[in-house]
């Protein structure tokens, strides 16, 4: 077996071996890996593992979700707030296929997960057995690594490898499929050793000093340098190093949706959000800067807009841990391979202490325009109907920016990301790359388990909420305390916005009806309220935050509001529209 031969460098410390089933060995392994919470759903092919869980209940908290997709999004939420690996259990067949959306989401957003799926007995593989699905092949494109275990003796090594791969380098989801016979099989368990080396796997490229020097020279010569930062700063736990770099170099810094919160939103050098619905200045000035410094971000098309008109005037310094990201979308002048926790301090040391006052002023000038034309009417509307933005503004007043904000996908997501105040890292949990509607409710459950001392607020649209609302059952059964804010515009708002702007208002299936969300919550024993008028908003939000336990607040917002600014698809970032 390849795995047995190659993966473990440290010798297995066997004082004396004990006889364990594959299932028990799996749970022992999870405990050594520091796992405390598992999100899962039982089924035929994973029953032996669930049977073993009965004996490990005091060490492993298993959260019974209502759907495997909910389980994996919860695992993602947990990983995003805790910084640990999210662990998910599912059975074979439909259980495993229900994980696919979450795996794709975790893969594109670099979220560390270890998913364990049950599988039919090894002798039944390939026979179209009951609940048999070729989960390894189905999940290959959406996992960083996957492996099928058919013999219990493989379990310790494979699980060690799974955790190492999920968490190291650029993190990602790993799926381990374990056949039922391997779960039942007894073997001599010789202890568990964590994996820290796989010869074919290079999690971190070696830092090259020559590139650091070239980058520093470019930065020191630059008159209009501009920093773009992404989730890489958070995943690399390099928030401090990043802040030091920004503050010493005095360079304005803008964030991708997943990078939000890596430095506080009100930091004087934080100039706002990038991308399609980002802030005005960061988009326009991308095409004016002379040196672009991209840190832990991957130039997603929603960030760059039209690529052949993206920052063509600038020299590009790209810091990334994943070599495949360098030059993938935007050609770099200087590629700074490596973990930004290592590369940023090296760079900070070489950059000169500067203040780019005039350049920074240009961002402020753009902000002023954006405030006048967009932000003011979004946050302080004079219309009767409420806007999404004002809900976020009022929420900021109550959270002071200390809460974890979990968002779904669509207009409310863009509004929440634009306006939510975030003081701390790991405060923004959203489906960025995949844009998975239905992400927020289960992710908020996981986020709370990952950061139990923090307030967790899920902001969800009326459409997305209805995709995974069954997880209210999980909220009920676990008795956790999360706040759910549904911003209800009675539309699939983002698609409607596009249909209005680009399809001459030909509304096609965006008119969505909803149940009475408050009564729905009530059926699950969750307190709730609906607010239709502005005068009740603040008190309702306050009541929600003060409530002991979970709470659902539905806010009726204006139906046909558009999120602006906007970079229309196929346009350059500097062609961003304010209306």
């Amino acid at each position, binding site marked *: 077996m*390849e795995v047995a*031969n*190659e993966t473990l460098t440290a010798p297995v410390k066997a004082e004396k071996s004990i006889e364990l089933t594959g299932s028990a060995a799996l749970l022992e392994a999870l405990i050594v890996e520091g796992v405390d919470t598992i999100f899962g759903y039982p089924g035929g092919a994973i029953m032996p593992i669930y049977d073993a869980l009965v004996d490990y209940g005091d060490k492993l908290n298993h959260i019974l979700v209502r759907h495997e997709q909910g389980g994996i999004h919860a695992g993602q939420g947990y990983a995003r707030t805790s910084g640990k690996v999210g662990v998910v259990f599912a059975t074979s067949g439909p259980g495993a296929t229900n994980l696919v959306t979450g795996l794709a989401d975790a893969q594109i957003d670099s979220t560390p997960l270890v998913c364990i799926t049950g599988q039919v007995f090894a002798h039944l593989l390939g026979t179209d057995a009951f609940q048999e699905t070729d989960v*390894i*092949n189905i999940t*290959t*494109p959406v996992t*960083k*690594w*996957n*492996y*099928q275990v058919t013999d219990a003796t493989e379990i310790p090594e494979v699980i060690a490898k799974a955790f190492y*791969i999920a968490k190291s380098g650029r993190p990602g989801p790993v799926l381990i499929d374990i056949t039922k016979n391997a779960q039942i099989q007894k073997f001599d368990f010789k202890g568990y050793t964590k994996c820290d*080396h*796989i*010869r*074919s*796997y*290079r999690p971190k*490229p*070696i830092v*090259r000093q020559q590139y650091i020097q070239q980058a520093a020279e470019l930065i020191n010569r630059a008159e209009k340098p501009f920093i773009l930062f992404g989730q890489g700063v958070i995943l690399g736990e390099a928030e401090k190093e990043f802040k030091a770099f920004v503050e010493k170099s005095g360079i304005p810094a803008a964030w991708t949706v997943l990078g939000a919160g890596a430095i506080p939103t009100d930091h004087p050098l934080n100039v706002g959000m990038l991308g399609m619905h980002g802030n005005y200045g960061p988009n326009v000035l991308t095409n004016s800067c002379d040196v672009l410094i991209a840190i832990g971000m991957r130039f997603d098309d929603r960030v760059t807009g039209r690529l052949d008109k993206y920052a063509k005037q600038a020299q590009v310094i790209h810091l990334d841990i*994943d*070599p*495949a990201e360098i*030059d*993938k979308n935007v050609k770099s002048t200087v*590629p700074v*391979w*490596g973990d930004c926790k290592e590369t940023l301090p090296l760079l900070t040391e070489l950059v000169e202490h500067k203040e780019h006052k005039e350049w920074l002023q240009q961002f402020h000038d753009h902000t002023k325009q954006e405030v006048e034309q967009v932000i003011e009417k979004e946050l302080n509307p004079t219309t009767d109907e409420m806007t999404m933005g004002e809900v976020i503004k009022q929420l900021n007043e109550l959270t002071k920016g200390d809460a974890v904000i979990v968002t779904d996908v669509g207009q409310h997501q863009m509004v929440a990301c634009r306006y939510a105040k975030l003081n701390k890292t790991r405060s923004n949990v959203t489906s960025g790359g995949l844009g998975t509607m239905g992400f927020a409710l289960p992710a908020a459950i996981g986020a709370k388990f990952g950061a139990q001392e923090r307030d967790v607020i899920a902001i969800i649209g009326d459409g997305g909420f209805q995709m995974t609302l069954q997880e209210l059952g999980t909220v009920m059964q676990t008795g956790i305390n999360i706040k759910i804010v549904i911003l209800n515009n009675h539309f699939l708002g983002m698609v409607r916005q596009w249909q209005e702007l680009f399809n001459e208002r030909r509304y096609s299936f965006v008119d969505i009806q909803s149940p009475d969300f408050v009564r729905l919550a009530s059926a699950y024993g969750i307190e709730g309220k609906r607010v239709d008028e502005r005068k009740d908003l603040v008190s309702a939000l306050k009541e929600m935050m003060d409530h002991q336990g979970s709470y659902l607040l539905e806010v009726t917002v204006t139906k046909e509001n558009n999120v602006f600014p906007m970079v229309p698809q196929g346009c350059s970032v500097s062609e961003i529209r304010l209306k």
Partner: protein
Amino acid sequence: MSNQDIEKQEFNITVYTENQIGLLNRIAIIFTRRKINIDSLNTSPSEIDSIHRFNIVITESEDVVRKVCRQIEKQVEVLKVYYHTNEDVIWQELALYKVSTDVIAEQVSVERLLRENGARVVVLRKDYTVFETSGHREETDALINILQPYGLIEFVRSARVAIIKDSDGFNSKLREFERLEPGEDVIENEYLNQGQKVFSM
């Protein structure tokens, strides 16, 4: 034809991997997700114990090939990936031809044609004879055309195998590739036989 099509040419991609179930699929989907057709694929154990070597041929622009190679190299069980143009490699395909023995015995010209085309007899039976030849696509194709009138019973051609022309083998190529690549693992051919040590990071 767009500019991109003009830039397209055959590239030979060499992938060194662990011997792992499912890796073929993991590598193949990196091409298929970009809708790139794999023209030829050969996989076999390499000169190093436990390490496999894939030879993959695709027709693409160098820019795409470079990105694809990085995405392949990112896979956990992939040790190293290289790409070369046809000019940089010596390559061969093996072909087998099954022809009725009677026809060959009767027709003297067939024997001459086979000899001219460098075909060798692999199996000689009463009922049929199997010839093999190796070479570039045009060469193996040429023999099909020659044998067709004489009743070609069966034909099969292997995937391409390629070795780089550079007298230093992968050594200097590796260094060149490494120049802009991360990592310190400059793999030298003389080390390759030492297996485990080579790829230590």
